[in-house]
């Protein structure tokens, strides 16, 4: 017998009501039930951060959260970052700084950075950015472009 639940959640401003099994992860709900395939799964055990999304504004590993735990929550995924055609300042900075190659880790790094930058008052230095970016894994870029992009956006946003 499957243990199923009806949940309601908002993803990038859009409301969804779906029936999920209690053991189904938020990552699978987003990817396979709701079609937000931008959230990626790299390890399913909470280390790589490719599945990072914002749950009520906080970065979480969507592979470690059950879909039912997101009931009534506001979820932001990579698909919600750009304003229609226009990429966000952070997305543009990732491209400009060559902060992505295969792009598999990118949604996770973008969401992590988005949350980090929104909490920043001043402009963090490189070491501080590195320390936060060390929460996720990228196998392609050597991190240099990612760190640079986040630093640049922090500077831009600080004006």
């Amino acid at each position, binding site marked *: 017998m499957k243990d199923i639940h009806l949940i309601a959640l908002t993803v990038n401003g859009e409301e969804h009501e779906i029936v999920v*099994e209690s*053991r*189904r992860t938020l990552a699978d709900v987003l*990817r*396979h039930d709701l079609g*937000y*395939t*931008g*959230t*990626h*799964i*790299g*390890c*399913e*055990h909470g*280390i*790589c951060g*490719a599945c990072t999304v914002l749950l009520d504004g906080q970065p979480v590993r969507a592979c470690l959260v059950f879909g039912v735990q997101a009931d009534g929550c506001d979820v932001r*995924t*990579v*698909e919600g*970052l*750009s304003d229609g055609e226009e*990429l966000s300042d952070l*997305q543009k900075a*990732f*491209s*400009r700084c*060559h902060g*992505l*190659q*295969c*792009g*598999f*880790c*990118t*949604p996770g790094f*973008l969401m992590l950075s988005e949350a980090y930058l929104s909490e920043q008052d001043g402009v963090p230095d*490189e070491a501080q*950015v*590195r*320390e936060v*970016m*060390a*929460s*996720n*894994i*990228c*196998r*392609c*870029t*050597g*991190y*240099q*472009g*990612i*760190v640079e992009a986040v630093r640049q956006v922090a500077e831009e946003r600080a004006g």
Partner: protein
Amino acid sequence: MTSIGERLARKEDPRLLRGLGRFGDDQDRPGQLWMRVVRSPLAHGRLVSISKPEGAHVITAEDVPPGVRIPVRLKVQGIDLDDHLQPVLAADEVRYVGEPVAVVLADDPYEAEDLAELVQVDIEELPVTVDTADGTQAAEFELGYGDVEAAFGEAGHVVRIEFEVGRHSAVPLEPRALLADVDPASGALQIFGMTKVPVFNRDVLATMLGIDENLIHVHAMDAGGGFGVRGEFYPEDFLVPWLAWTLRRPVKWVEDRAEHLVAVNHSRQQKHVISAAFDNEGTLLGLKDDVLHDNGAYARTHGIIVPELTLAMLPGPYRVPAFHGRVRVMLTNKTPCGTYRAPGRFEGTSVREQLLDVAADQLGIDRVELRRKNLLTADELPHTRAMSTLGTDVVLDSGDYPGLLDKAMVEADRLGYLSRLESLRAQGHAAGLGVAMFLEKSGLGPQETADVTVSTSGAVRVHSGGTSLGQGIETILAQVTADALDIDPAVVTVINGDTVLQPFGGGSWASRSTVVGGSAVHRAAVAVRERAVRMASRMLEVAEEDLEIKAGMIGVRGAPGSSVSYADVAKACRPGSPYLGPDEPAGLTARRRFEVEHMTYPYGVHVALVDVDTGTGHVEVLRYLVAYEVGRAINPTLVEGQLLGGVAQGVGGALLEEFRYDEAGQPQAVTFMDYLMPTAAEVPRIDVLVAQDAPAPGNPLGVKGAGEGGLTAAGAVIAGAIRDALGLTGSVGRLPMTAERVRGLIEEGT
């Protein structure tokens, strides 16, 4: 207008930044079945029985066509490995933990996983071999030239070390995923998720299924990193399409990380005993290496090319008058091995450069000076070594090796590496500097094919045989096309790795996409350009010689206003056009092939500054410089990106990453908690010096591959830096230099 050499923003970026890439697990089909692989929990044993849970759809070796084995893609040295090939499902014996023994199908992936856990596999245990030296020898061969015995006989000094490289691998961030479906309209098998060598894989599959290769369509996809392991033909690459074909249902399979770490090719594990003969002035007279290569349980698609490349590239950029290498390829009860970025070169470079460091100390010569003295000079190139690898002769094509070494040392000094080293030491730190020089190879043939087509809107499409693995090849090929046609790269779309659009592709591996793929695209684009000029001369009624192309317009030289665009020409190439001759094919399009006999050899220098905590054994990499010669950088930003990413992987291989096994053959690294990859905290800011001083003579673009040089000497340079930091007289002996190992060295005080 040239697009080559521009730091053009990547074409891949907008879709990837929006989360709109198309990766293996991003698609589903209505009614699809999910496959889950049941894997051997034991390293070696006789398969007694497999009990299937009630009502579950389980497939075992009995159900698959008999004798289906993973073939060797690259046969070298005339060695037959038929006895050591992996079956797609184990039939009688299991030989490593993780070997597929059965698959389960279900409507839902969670259910498939549950059912797979209920499958009981009864295995009668057999003795397990973990140590390479105790393994079964699958192959033995020698490679070399010159009179090595004489060289050692007359040597003033002989230096010998033993060095081991640990088992690690690519571990791309995206696990493997496959979706296969039979299209009812065309009857063709549609496959999503095969990369790297899609045309080769299609042909292998067609043979295994006994169907025409044109009944298989491998689609272009994004892939979350390749680095050599992704896209090789694995057991699942047969099982998923075969099930879809026989059941006439879409079948999907997504690997989880624990599976990936035991299922996908491992790499690198070798033990070397290497010696060098020098005269009294420190001139190299000869080199000898005896290698024990651990290939795990089977020979897979790469056969024995990793050990072959190890030996063939071992002399590196040096003047080595006589060389002899022997390798024994051993099978053990561990995951089978294949290539990982810089295969054979990471291993060989680590060993050779450590040997040179030890030799420099023993000879009392500065280690940079010892290298400079023995590097082949620009005048000595091209230099042919009387041995071959990957079926081609080793001909070092062009370069200035000592020149790049000098440049790198000047740059490191300018950036403050040496002063930082001094000040750290003055403060009592165990700091050290490593310097390593290496030779790479790239642009393996034999061919690549590309199509370039201009549509009536003026948009240009390129169908290439490479695949997009994250390296930015779409951008590179768009730049090559735009350059040849003199158009804006923005109008160029590149499709890679679709076997219908490009049925003759060779794939993306061995740093060949830009070199061989780029050259094919260049040729096809030049052919389109020539055709466009021919057509324009008819349209404008002027001689071809009087036409010129500027910013996408073909016009009469010196007569502004009378010109046609590529779009106009494409319209004039439509069937029924008055400009088209009777037998002339319609369309402004060309397919061209680029064939190449020899590889092109990039080369580089790595310099690293490390600080060793003598209490904990922790090694911090403080500064890292890569200097690399690429002939010509189509997009310097992307070249730099390749180098930066390579260094990060190299730091992992040098310090952290290792697939360890216990005595029972149980893998000890099956999660990212035990397989440690570097994060932003372990990888320092990296300095890059991209040199374009020695264009490759063997291709029209003058390019040398940039895919691997960031990684090649990382093991070597970090081993050298640690040795320097600890003031060792001998070799560090082994990679990775984990904190535990470093502490061991400090205690031994060798």
